[in-house]
């Protein structure tokens, strides 16, 4: 995982607009990149393989998956901002415990808000709301990003990672609900004679769905690598979009 913590000049960059930022040192990280990297390129679930427990446990329907994603996003944002504000005050030796207590406070807030406003969803998610405390994504972002970066960037990073996590959950939830109950968000989408794959709603379905998503991603990556190799060797016609693939490989 690459970190941009090595760019201490980032906050001062706007003060010196005379030199194009792309000419000095490593490419600067724009606010947009802080925000969007979590969506797919550094997706916390599919790329970093963090926070697998809730991704599999509560995604048997899209509604639960979405609620879980939004709750985690709020905790990521809140704890990220807090840790970032106090990052110079927190002693290094007790930083993990401090982060955990800050995170636990925000999780408690989410828990009580969900219980008050959407009691049914709260009941469906059960213990997994409180278990956001031990979601590795949240702790990993504090340790890797917010403890070294400004409040604004930490907030963007938190929301971006939260959206990435929500996307992953909703993707899993959609596959499992459509195949397991023949519906999406409670709306019937499969034909009436479709026999639901009950297994998708049960625990094994979580492991299998995630496994097949990873298989598809690996297949896609291999296919792209093969095409790039083909384009480099000059054999055959150059496939569409291979220039972009080349640029990424370089």
């Amino acid at each position, binding site marked *: 995982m690459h970190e941009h913590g090595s760019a201490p000049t980032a906050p001062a960059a706007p003060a010196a607009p005379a030199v194009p930022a792309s000419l000095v040192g490593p490419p600067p990280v724009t606010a947009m990149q802080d925000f969007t990297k979590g969506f797919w390129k550094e997706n916390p679930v599919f790329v970093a393989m963090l926070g697998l427990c809730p991704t599999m446990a509560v995604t048997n329907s899209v509604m639960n998956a979405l609620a879980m994603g939004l709750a985690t996003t709020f905790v990521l944002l809140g704890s990220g901002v807090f840790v970032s504000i106090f990052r110079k005050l927190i002693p290094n030796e007790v930083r993990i415990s401090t982060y955990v207590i800050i995170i636990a*406070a925000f999780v408690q807030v989410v828990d009580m808000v969900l219980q008050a406003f959407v009691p049914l969803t709260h009941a469906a998610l059960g213990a997994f709301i409180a278990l956001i*405390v031990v979601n590795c994504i949240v702790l990993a972002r504090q340790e890797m990003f917010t403890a070294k970066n400004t409040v604004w960037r930490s907030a963007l990073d938190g929301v971006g990672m939260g959206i990435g996590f929500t996307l992953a959950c909703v993707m899993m939830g959609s596959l499992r609900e459509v195949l397991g109950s023949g519906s999406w968000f409670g709306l019937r989408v499969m034909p009436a004679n479709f026999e639901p794959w009950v297994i998708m709603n049960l625990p094994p379905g979580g492991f299998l769905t995630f*496994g097949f998503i990873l298989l598809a991603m690996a297949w896609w990556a291999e296919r792209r690598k093969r095409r790039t190799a083909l384009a480099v060797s000059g054999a055959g016609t150059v496939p569409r979009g291979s220039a972009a693939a080349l640029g990424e490989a370089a």
Partner: protein
Amino acid sequence: MRDYVVIFVSAMLVQNFTLVLFLGLCAFFGVTSKVSVAVRLGLADTFVLVMTSVVVSILNRWVVGHVPYLRTIAFIVVIASMVQVTEMAIKKWSPVLFRELGIYLPLITTNCAILALAIFQTNRGYGFLEGLTYSVGAGLGLILALTLMASIRERLDLADVPSVARGIAIVLIISGALSLAFMGFAGMLSA
């Protein structure tokens, strides 16, 4: 007596923490490449589970009832301290094991199985002895799941796996099959 047997078997097999409830998956995927290490991590997990269960019983009886909104925070602080104690004990008694477990030892703090045990125990209103039975059952269930997975993965090293499935993808599919097998226990108890 029958209650305790039901709690024990249910925690170990029917509601296996890893394969049925999806708890503690990081360790399940992270340290199951060797059976010996997996078993030892399972034992460390079990130790922390039992200690946590004891302290949570005490907390539930005298503290958390008065301040319900501090529940999550109180539990996580207790767990972090328990893990710290375990870490120091292992470092003292078996430096080799300490090195083998590496980062996964302090990470027991963020192993959701531990916090989940504390929460389930509270939600179900288990007393001291029930909680103890529950935590031992859950710990043995973790050891069982970790050992099964590690044994399969040791064999897998010699198998001819398609290139796209190498790494974590095949492990997930195998977990699906294992989880399917554990669904078979569902009819064992009606509790």
